[in-house]
């Protein structure tokens, strides 16, 4: 029976804009500073302070609108949304109610399904209330007034997996466009979900809002739970269990949602146009500037990487997993002839560095070496000046010293051994102690030869060229055979 149920899902995504300063004052927009150090009379709600729109925030909002194919309103205005809370310094949030920055637009999922956007509007963030410090509640207003865009989707999403894909795609686009860092851990991307279920061909069910979704995985888990809960409630046939219009909180520990606020407790926000901020007109110049600063978006880049650079779909996907990586990839390409090699090195070796805490680098923007250096390293490996293991060692060293790959190759003594006499001595040494394997090889099992390469490499301190060792071993075994 469950197959007959459809879920109807809409997402509201808040993204902090990557501006230098806050939406309506000159305070720095930054994360992780000591509490209440990025504040001024305006963002602490001092009497008499007035908001003035940050043009950069408007431009980033427009860039988001263009990246998502939205229709930008020629005239837009700010409204006040009222509620009382300790992290809301003015007793109202400056937001946009009935004349948002833009409407329409959307994005396409891998299946070809289109998820439409209802609107995107600009608003200011609230501060942060910290409740876990004993009797008192502490308030940090560094975040108060940070610019946000709220992207509201149409209820076009049908499954938790689609919700996940939509969020990933939205995040990717906004990151590439330089609109937002979209880092959920830093709170620069936050997501609320609206979900209802109904049987196909019947009226829509009652909509429930889900909050406290701190990762994409939570969004998926909360949706899975909530869809199941709603279906079971309807199927139970008990009117008392029927879903009601309410806001539910996702309990991460239990993997459940529970009632936070019923409809009758919903705020009357008393929206009205903010008299401190005259309506603003988006001019052609505004739009053109935003368009000029809109970089090539990930889907377009992926297509170019496969079609003109010859990368496989997988590598193209990895190279466009972040704007920083894609930009680094393209910068490295300027010094390297093989897109495939660069993608291989970045996708395997460099990304592995980020996962290894001992490397000291966690992200592309923390890399101390330049794309030119990486290209040089790839060149050393490709030309056989060092083997893969040696190149990997050099890459690690490049993270902590400013030396060029060539210098490191020499300093670390990682040049491949070209001296055949020396190689031959190591090979003979290994062959002498491996009569059984030699016999196997001689018996026609070519693969057994592989077991001999490792010990030779070990004797060489990793400096021998594996192919040369293999060739030499083969020759020596053959010689022995004919001699014996």
């Amino acid at each position, binding site marked *: 029976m469950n197959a007959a149920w459809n879920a109807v899902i809409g997402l509201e995504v808040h993204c902090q804009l990557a501006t230098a300063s806050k939406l309506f004052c000159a305070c720095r927009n930054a994360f992780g500073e000591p509490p209440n150090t990025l504040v001024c*009379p305006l963002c*602490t*709600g*001092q*009497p*008499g*302070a*007035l*908001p*003035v*729109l940050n043009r950069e925030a408007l431009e980033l909002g427009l860039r988001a609108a263009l990246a998502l194919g939205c229709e930008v309103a020629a005239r837009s205005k700010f409204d*006040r949304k*009222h509620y*009382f*809370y*300790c992290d809301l*310094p*003015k*007793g*109202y949030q400056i937001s946009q109610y009935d004349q948002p920055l833009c409407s329409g637009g959307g994005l396409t999922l891998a299946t070809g399904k289109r998820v439409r956007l209802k609107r995107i509007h600009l608003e200011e963030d609230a501060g942060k209330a910290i409740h876990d410090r004993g009797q008192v*509640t502490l*308030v940090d207003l560094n975040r108060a007034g940070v610019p946000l865009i709220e992207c509201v989707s149409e209820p076009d999403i049908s499954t938790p997996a689609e919700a996940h894909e939509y969020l990933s795609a939205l995040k990717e686009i906004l990151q590439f466009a330089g609109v937002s860092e979209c880092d959920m851990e830093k709170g620069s991307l936050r997501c609320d979900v609206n979900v209802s279920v109904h049987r196909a061909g019947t009226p829509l069910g009652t909509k429930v809002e889900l909050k406290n979704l701190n990762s994409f995985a939570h969004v998926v888990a909360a949706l899975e739970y909530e869809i199941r809960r709603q279906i079971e409630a309807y199927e139970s046939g008990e009117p008392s269990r029927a879903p009601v219009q309410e806001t539910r909180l996702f309990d991460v520990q239990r993997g459940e949602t529970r009632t936070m606020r019923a409809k009758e407790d919903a705020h*009357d926000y*008393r*929206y*009205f146009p903010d*008299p*401190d*901020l*005259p309506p603003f007109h988006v001019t052609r110049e505004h739009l053109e500037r935003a368009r000029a600063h809109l970089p090539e978006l990930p889907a377009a880049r992926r297509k170019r990487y496969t079609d003109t650079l010859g990368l496989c779909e997988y590598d193209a996907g990895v190279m466009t997993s972040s704007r920083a990586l894609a930009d680094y990839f393209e910068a490295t390409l300027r010094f390297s002839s093989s897109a495939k090699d660069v993608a291989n090195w970045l996708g395997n070796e460099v990304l592995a560095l980020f996962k290894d805490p001992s490397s000291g680098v966690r992200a592309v923007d923390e890399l101390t070496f330049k794309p030119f250096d990486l290209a040089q390293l790839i060149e050393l490996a490709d030309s056989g000046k060092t083997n893969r293991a040696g190149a990997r060692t050099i890459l690690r060293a490049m993270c902590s010293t400013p030396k060029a790959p060539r210098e490191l190759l020499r300093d670390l003594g990682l040049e491949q051994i070209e001296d055949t006499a020396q190689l031959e001595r190591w090979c003979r040494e290994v062959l002498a102690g491996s009569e059984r394997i030699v016999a196997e090889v001689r018996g026609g099992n070519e693969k057994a030869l592989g077991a001999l390469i490792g010990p030779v490499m070990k004797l060489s301190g990793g400096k021998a060229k594996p192919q040369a060792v293999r060739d030499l071993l083969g020759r020596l075994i053959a010689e022995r055979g004919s001699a014996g």
Partner: protein
Amino acid sequence: MSARAALATALDRIERYDEDIGALLEVDAAGAAARAAELDRSESHGALHGMPFVVKANMCIEGRIASCGSRMLEGYRAPYTASAVQRLIDEGAVPIGIANMDEFAFGSSGENSSFGSTRNPWDLSRAPGGSSSGSAAAVAARMVPFALGSDTGGSVRQPAALCGVTGYKPTYGVVSRHGLIAFGSSLDAVGVLATSAADVERVLAVISGADERDATSALRAPFEPAPARTDLRGLRVGLPREYFPADLDGRVRQPLEQALDDLRRLGAELVELDLPTTRHAIAAYYVVATAEASSNLARYDGVRYGARIAGDGSLQGMFAATRGAAFGAEALRRILLGTYVLSSGYYDAWYLRALKVRRAILRDFQAAFERVDVLAAPTSPTPAFRLGEKLSDPLAMYLCDVLTVPTSLAGLPAISVPCGCAAEDGVELPVGLQLIGPAFEDARVLSVARCYQAATEHHRRLPPLVAGGVA
């Protein structure tokens, strides 16, 4: 005159009169003395060199009281200085005190101050008008040559009329609101109280002009006074019939008719006309102004500054207890009214309709200004009333603003100039003539007032209390 001498005169008069009048909440004699000495030492003198002034308690001066006449902000000191005040300081004027006011500028008598009523220097048993009560009384008693006030629906003009001084509300946007603690943001204007239109012009020239810290400030050059005019020939003065009702208080009508005669004698042509939307203005004003006030006063929640009362210990309980106890009755009344008109289900019927009326009022004025250059009217329906007389009747108090709110809704420049006195119970009570101009014709309004004052003496008359002590 040296800054120190001007300051000494001001402090002396404050010492002598303010105990009776109660115009000022705080006097910064030491700070002002230091500033005056510094100014006198400096080689270059600003446009207002050494002029002492006081500021209504809803304008910020760093480190000074900015209580808005409210318990809610008792002890609150501004962390920064308002643009208008800063411009005055930069031109050599010396802030010496903070003036009393109706709580958050809600009132027309000065009696709504949490810190006691200011008294009218002409008769200490009467109200000075409001809400810029202390600013008007301080100028009337000649404690200072000028004061800053704020005018949302008449709060500069009405107390100016009742105290016999010149009070000016500029076109909305001509003076930055940055640092003016908001009441009704779309109506609030920083205004000037002085003893003549000429002094208003000197001050306005300093405080006006675009300010990047106020998005509603007009992108215009600072005000420049119009050349002096010796008469008013060629000037068409409109007399809106709605401002001269048949039952207009005789104490106001008589001096006003004299003033109209004076204007005519100066060469002005007087034209009667209609502003039919006038009768809707009070209703529309009290919807728009309270809606904005309810929003602007939402920040007083006990969290960051000002009063805090714990209540039941919960956050919402603290908000409720703080706001319930620290706001006065009139503030609570306006917050409730404003909250109501913005509530879902009522917004269209109240707030949106009031905005429509507001636009109609503006159109009325615009039509009138196609026929005339300025409008003339009384400023207040009555001269100063007795303290306590209207306190228990909010509606009667609201009607004090009936002649000033239409111009506020339309954002127009308007001045009140003394035009004589009405005698009552053996005391003289000043009456104000209001002159209103089209938007951004501030110079026209002020030049007409200046011409009128050059030909008359009313603005020079002193309250009996201070007449002997002021040369």
